[in-house]
């Protein structure tokens, strides 16, 4: 159960130091631009920007590759589906497969776009700790408070959920081993059987989680937590000139990609 998404890489690069809000806005805007622009020239501009950003992050390529490798299947699937089903004059036909230059071109474009999209998103998650990211999102969601959406509370919930994932994985492992010691079999049998064998694992996991939640809530209250009260942060979000510069550069890149 190692990293399946590009996990935060502790570092001190320029990108690490940028405000999570600026990074989130820049990445979202670039992602939208990627979807809007459908030419290889535009894609090339965004790909170059993404590669440059990745290089600036100082994250070893192996770190990204480990997270990206499982996604290769998705890229391959996108490619094959496009090649097979895309319209165009076929230069090769067999049964339901019709290969056309137009189809190949489209498949290449869509798969490359997916790769660039993953790269752009990864630059954000690789250089931003999840807590900073949730804080940033809570800030960006602030207008929703007017609609009585408890954004700060939701952000804290997400932080706590992320904090407890490793704890729950350890717990899951313990329960599964306990059940295996009593003769449970999670590896064999049909899908139905294997799903049923998970019930005696999930029930205790839920029960334990609820008890954890109770105790955690008590410990939070003991440390003066009150939902809705004004809180300050040890690491307040601070946007500076470099964050402004990031937004300007991103806007320029987007414009360049749209105009080429």
């Amino acid at each position, binding site marked *: 159960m190692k990293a399946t998404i590009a996990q935060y890489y502790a570092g001190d690069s320029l990108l690490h130091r940028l405000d999570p809000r600026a990074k989130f806005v820049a990445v979202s805007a670039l992602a939208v631009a990627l979807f809007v622009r459908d030419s290889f020239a535009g894609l090339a501009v965004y790909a170059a920007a993404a590669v440059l950003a990745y290089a600036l992050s100082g994250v070893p390529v192996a770190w990204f590759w480990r997270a990206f490798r499982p996604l290769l299947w998705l890229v391959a699937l996108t490619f094959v589906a496009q090649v097979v089903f895309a319209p165009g004059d076929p230069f090769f036909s067999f049964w339901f497969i019709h290969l056309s230059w137009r189809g190949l071109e489209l498949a290449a474009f869509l798969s490359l776009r997916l790769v660039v999209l993953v790269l752009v998103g990864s630059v954000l998650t690789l250089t931003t700790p999840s807590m900073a990211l949730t804080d940033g999102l809570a800030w960006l969601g602030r207008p929703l408070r007017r609609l009585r959406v408890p954004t700060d509370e939701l952000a804290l919930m997400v932080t706590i959920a992320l904090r407890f994932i490793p704890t729950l994985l350890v717990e899951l492992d313990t329960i599964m081993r306990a059940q295996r010691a009593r003769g449970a079999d999670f590896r064999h049998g049909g899908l139905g059987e294997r799903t049923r064998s998970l019930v005696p694992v999930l029930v205790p996991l839920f029960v334990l989680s609820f008890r954890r939640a109770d105790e955690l809530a008590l410990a939070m*209250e003991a*440390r003066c937590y009150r939902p809705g009260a004004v809180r300050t942060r040890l690491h307040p979000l601070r946007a500076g000139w470099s964050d402004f510069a990031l937004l300007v550069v991103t806007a320029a890149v987007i414009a360049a990609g749209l105009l080429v």
Partner: protein
Amino acid sequence: MSSSPDETAPLFDISGLHYRYAGAQADALADLDLTVHEGEFVAVLGANGSGKSTLARLLGGLEKPTAARHALACGHDLLVEDGRLSARRDVGVLFQNPENQLVAQCVEDDVAFGLENLAWPAADMRRRVDAMLARFGLEELRRREPHMLSGGQKQRTALAGVIAVPRRVLVLDEPTAMLDPAGRDEVLMAVREMHADGLAVVYITQEMDEAVGADRVVVLGGGTEAYAGTAAGLFADAVRVRRLGLGLPAAGELALALAERGHALRGLPLTIDELLAALGDAP
């Protein structure tokens, strides 16, 4: 009435306290009196189900007493909502399971959690958190994620987080019960240091050895006070100790075993040092 803490008044001034869980047939705590003064170290002992953890939650202002003649924590009235909320600032409560007390994704953010809730300015918070990390030997671990910590480190982080908010008294609910011997020593050492610095401590435990150094021992039995006095006074009556569902400190058990084999020692040693001294005296 609920506020204005008085420096000379007891930290806990509780009389005739009752607590009954919703739907329960009997009181979990019944007619309990407890007074704790500035600078005291009070150990609370009791068998499982004697109401120890309930007491910790009530003292911390985390639960509403069902009834009480009076229940004051640091001058705050625990019978009213506002009083309980104020009590949560002055009374620190550390629970048994360190895992279920850590909220944040790294040590220093967790230590800051209480201060964040009280809306401390970031600069003051930074200084306070750094001081706490230094005090509890956590500086090297400040960016460490909770699941990468040992049990003792987790509980020290939780303790630092409780104490980061300036407290007048600390209530600990079996803080070493889930730790290995090394972790237990780490936490005990930290608690003793804080007490030496003048902080009053209410130490709830099942470990007889941990109660020995206390200024005063209170034993809960069936939700009420079954004994109050010194540790030596409690352990001197072995029959009562058994009846209360307790045991003797390791040194005391050993001395009794020796006595049964005809090697009676003078007095009942409660610590290893006392045992060694008594053995030195023996013929």
